């Protein structure tokens, strides 16, 4: 479902003397449907960079990032927009929403974009919010004022609202208590069972051991840095 080959990336800082910072070279990764792969490596090794490149958020300099039939490294913006709507979900560490939009609508939005009838989309959103222990009295409020853990759970509910065939999870269990951590791990297991290909970053080792089939150390893709 996700096939990465020969991927490389560098940043050119035009306003800082044109400095070129290579951050990735020769990255490769294959994730089959139903597989969950954990990206590992120390901070700064490029785990988030690789995830962002799969999502099309960072541009690739060379190589191939196949998600389904789409090569994200070469696709036109509208192809990536379609891919993100239908195929590729991303749970980032931070919730970014239009202020004042109720939590229920924030979670339902990925379904509404796909044309799911409003009642069905809201019902699915509410079921996920309930599972993730967000109190019902908060559903009609904007999540912008919620605590960090609550925002994280809203973000997860939003990411799991549509059954994406491929999912990227950036620290999905960070800042969660034991109860909610279990709910999230169950959601991940359910996604795997229905055949989702998952790439994740988990600093939580027990979580990684429970849901991930393999680990890929991205340090192998980090270019040697000139001292």
């Amino acid at each position, binding site marked *: 479902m996700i096939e990465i080959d020969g991927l490389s990336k560098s*940043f*050119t*800082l*035009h*306003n800082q003397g044109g400095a070129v910072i290579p951050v990735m070279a020769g990255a490769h990764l294959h994730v089959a449907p139903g597989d969950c792969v954990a990206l590992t490596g120390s901070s700064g090794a490029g785990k988030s960079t690789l995830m*962002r490149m799969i999502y*099309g*958020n*960072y*541009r690739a300099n060379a190589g191939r990032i196949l998600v389904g039939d789409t090569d994200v490294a070469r696709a036109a*913006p*509208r192809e*990536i*927009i379609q891919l993100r709507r239908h195929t590729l979900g991303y749970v980032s560490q931070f919730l*970014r929403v*239009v*202020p*004042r*939009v109720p939590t229920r609508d924030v979670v339902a939005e990925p379904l*509404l*974009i796909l044309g799911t009838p409003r009642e069905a989309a809201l019902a699915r959103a509410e079921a996920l919010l309930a599972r993730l222990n967000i109190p019902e009295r908060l559903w009609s409020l904007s999540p912008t004022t919620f605590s960090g853990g609550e925002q994280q759970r809203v973000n997860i509910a939003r990411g799991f609202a549509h059954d994406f065939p491929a999912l990227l999870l950036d620290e999905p269990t960070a800042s969660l208590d034991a109860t909610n951590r279990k709910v999230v791990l169950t959601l991940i297991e359910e996604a795997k069972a229905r055949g989702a290909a998952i790439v994740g970053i988990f600093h939580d080792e027990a979580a990684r051991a429970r849901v991930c089939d393999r680990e890929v150390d991205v340090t192998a893709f980090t270019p040697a840095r000139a001292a």
Partner: protein
Amino acid sequence: MTPLLNVRDLAKFYGSRRGCEGVSFDLWPGEVMGIVGESGSGKSTLLSCLAGHLAPDRGEVIFDTQLHGPRDTLTMSEPERRMLMRTDWAFVHQHARDGLRMGVSAGGNVGERLMAVGARHYGQIRDQAIDWLGRVEIAADRIDDKPQAFSGGMQQRLQIARNLVTGPRLVFMDEPTGGLDVSVQARLLDLLRGLVREMGLSAIIVTHDLAVVRLLADRLMVMKDGRVVEEGLTDQVLDDPQHGYTQLLVSSVLQV
């Protein structure tokens, strides 16, 4: 699928000074494109050329019309272009007073657009006006008030109702949230996002506010000195800018 708008090598000069030059892009149905750049970068000139308010010196603006398929809007007759502006296009000005008739009631402002495309039944026009005022969160009992009696945010919402009541397919917006309080901006952004999704609208939004494009636009074009220096997915351009000017623009935003 045909692009809704196909722009080729558009250029506009003011004497020898470049307004915009070499602009080409496709806009697809349901897409929202943002155009950013500092004052004087040519973004408003470009929008005016696209919307038929300014005659460009060169280029093509091919729009997929409902009746006749793709047509170059620059070479069509003036009456044809005027009809297109009433049926298929809408233009939301930064200052609501430029897009509203300030001496006409709120209901009249909305109804006037309907009459311009042939609606004649007073009761139906009024019902549709009330429906649209509701959709932009203006209470029905304000229908007979003139826009002068409205706050800035309400005027902007009324302008949007007036523009969208005829069910256009392409909306041009010039700094639609400029000059509004941040709380009013948020409400307007949410409204616009909902309308874009429900009506399947395509939109071109000119703004200098990067937070606004991040929330509203699927794609982004960055302009400098009348030329497009970078374009791509909105979050990609903002998070991994390739051009030096875009890097400067993104790094100059104050964090809150």
